[in-house]
């Protein structure tokens, strides 16, 4: 019995390790090669950056030679502001949909999550026209608005499911304690669904940070470029500065990683245990 358990545990770990290697391989390749000379990248892509092949020239050109810190700041601003808006508006809309009964509530709920089925990129041309006519072209605001719209449907879909499971009696109890509906939302409901907020945050964040499409179309201007767009300046028509491209990508991974670590700490289950019988 014990042997059997050990074998199955070894098996499970083998599968998980294999998957991790597979998933991490491209990332490792980017980070490794960002520390190598151009020649070494092409001669031996999987080799370690040791001795002669080591070069930090890529990082050098990224950090000194360009507007990279600006692009970085732009990406961070767009991602954080969009995320805050998605989480705040999404959670509030879902709270209303799950807590209050009003005429047309089902219809409104369906309308809000309909966006899941329609890729926002289909509307690119219309979005561009809209943004230009609003005078928002080449601004971060344009990106923030589009990303918020892009993230809301799935956020509302997930939040509504979870907010429905929040005990009605806790909210009623807060009402008797004299809390306004807003304070019930912020002080009672939000602390109960923190893990869900973290989950939604993690997978709303990554597509925004990684997006190339909308920055390229809506805000390609020098001042409003994001990291993904900024990387493009190292890719020329005839020559590509691979060291710099890989270095900028390596640096771009960092904030996502940090945010993920922050949110994953919140992904602790069972925070509601003890609130109600269960």
């Amino acid at each position, binding site marked *: 019995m014990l042997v059997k358990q050990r074998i199955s545990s070894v098996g499970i770990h083998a599968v998980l390790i294999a998957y991790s290697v597979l998933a991490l391989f491209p990332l490792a390749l980017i980070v490794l090669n960002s520390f190598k000379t151009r020649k070494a990248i092409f001669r031996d892509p999987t080799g370690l950056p040791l001795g002669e092949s080591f070069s930090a020239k890529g990082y050098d050109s990224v950090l000194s030679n360009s507007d990279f810190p600006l692009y970085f700041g732009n990406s961070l601003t767009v991602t954080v502001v969009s995320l805050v808006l998605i989480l705040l508006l999404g959670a509030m809309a879902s709270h209303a949909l799950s807590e209050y009964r009003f005429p047309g509530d089902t219809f409104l709920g369906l309308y809000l999550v309909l966006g899941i089925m329609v890729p926002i990129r289909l509307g690119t041309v219309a979005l561009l026209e809209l943004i230009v006519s609003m005078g928002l072209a080449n601004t971060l605001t344009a990106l923030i608005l589009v990303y918020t719209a892009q993230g809301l449907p799935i956020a509302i879909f997930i939040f509504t499911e979870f907010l429905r499971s929040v005990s009605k*009696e*806790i909210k*009623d109890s807060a009402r008797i304690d*004299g809390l306004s509906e807003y304070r019930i939302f912020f002080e009672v409901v939000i602390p109960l669904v923190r893990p869900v907020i973290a989950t939604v945050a993690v997978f709303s964040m990554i597509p925004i940070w990684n997006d190339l499409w909308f920055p390229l179309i809506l805000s390609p201007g020098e001042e409003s470029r994001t990291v993904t767009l900024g990387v493009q300046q190292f890719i020329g028509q005839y020559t590509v500065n691979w060291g710099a491209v890989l270095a900028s990508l390596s640096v771009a991974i960092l904030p996502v990683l940090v945010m993920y670590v922050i949110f994953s700490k919140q992904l602790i289950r069972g*925070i509601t*245990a*003890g609130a*109600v*019988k269960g």
Partner: protein
Amino acid sequence: MATLELKGIKKSFGSTDVIHDMNLDVNDGELIVFVGPSGCGKSTMLRMIAGLETLSAGQISIGGKRVDHLPPTDRGIAMVFQSYALYPHKDVRGNLGFALKHAKVPQKEIDERVNKASEILGLSDLMKRKPRELSGGQRQRVAIGRAIVREPDVFLFDEPLSNLDAALRVHMRVELLKLHQRLRNTMVYVTHDQVEAMTLADRIVVFREGRVEQVGTPLELYRQPMNTFVAGFIGSPAMNFLMARVEDGTVKLADTPVCKTSANNGSVKLGIRPEHLALSDDGPFDGKVSVFEHLGGESFLHLTLNDNQTMVAKLDGERSFAPGDQCRLGVRQEYCHVFDESENRVVE
């Protein structure tokens, strides 16, 4: 300290009426229990008193002041919920003081009131614990404590004991009674458990399908149930009902006279509580034992009468029967309840 007055209260959800014209006066310091099967409207009524549901018609007054237009927090009520509804991210002290803190009561007074409530309920050692670290009974006490610190005029309890296991429920029932004797507040208590209703209540309100069937002290309900529903709901095991006939002021089962009545000739329902039946050699209930349950101090005798009606008798633990034994039971005149064809009590 306050009275509670319900006047002409109606509630409907869409086209379904859940409360039909409810009127009730609750005296100051009275513990009143709403009892009835699930879906009878008792919880809805309580939520309307609390201000969590709107009224379709009628008035609610607390302490002589009309409150049905006020939000819950201004009505001078506190409510204890079935699921306790504690704030999971706050410790016991935080849970107890939350309402006061929100009402901007000075910290010193909050501490005083929280400490007093925790003393009453024996929570002083648990103040730093989160709800998930408490047992069911402790959580229930915190929920009650949260109501106490608000010093309300009226306490509302919505089936507060039904999540506890049987032994704890009996214990908490006694605690609640002690609490009521100590605080002397007006309390409204909702339950579907008639034992809780009987033991706790000063007066009981029996609900059925949104209507009040009877209001009275536990003993009134037990001794003079106004109809078969109340008669069957109050008391355990439930009252036996037998189809009988009245002939010239005498209730007869088949041709055996059972008791006197003022009912007119015709068919009636005869109600007899199991605990009022006794073995008797010349009793009117003659039949075969179908099941015999022995509980030690007492026993339940399930009898199939000769005309195939069944009844249960609660006997002492002295005698023993086997299925199939012939048996005769009798009842005293004052323990016979006669109900007419519309199920209402025939007043003697």
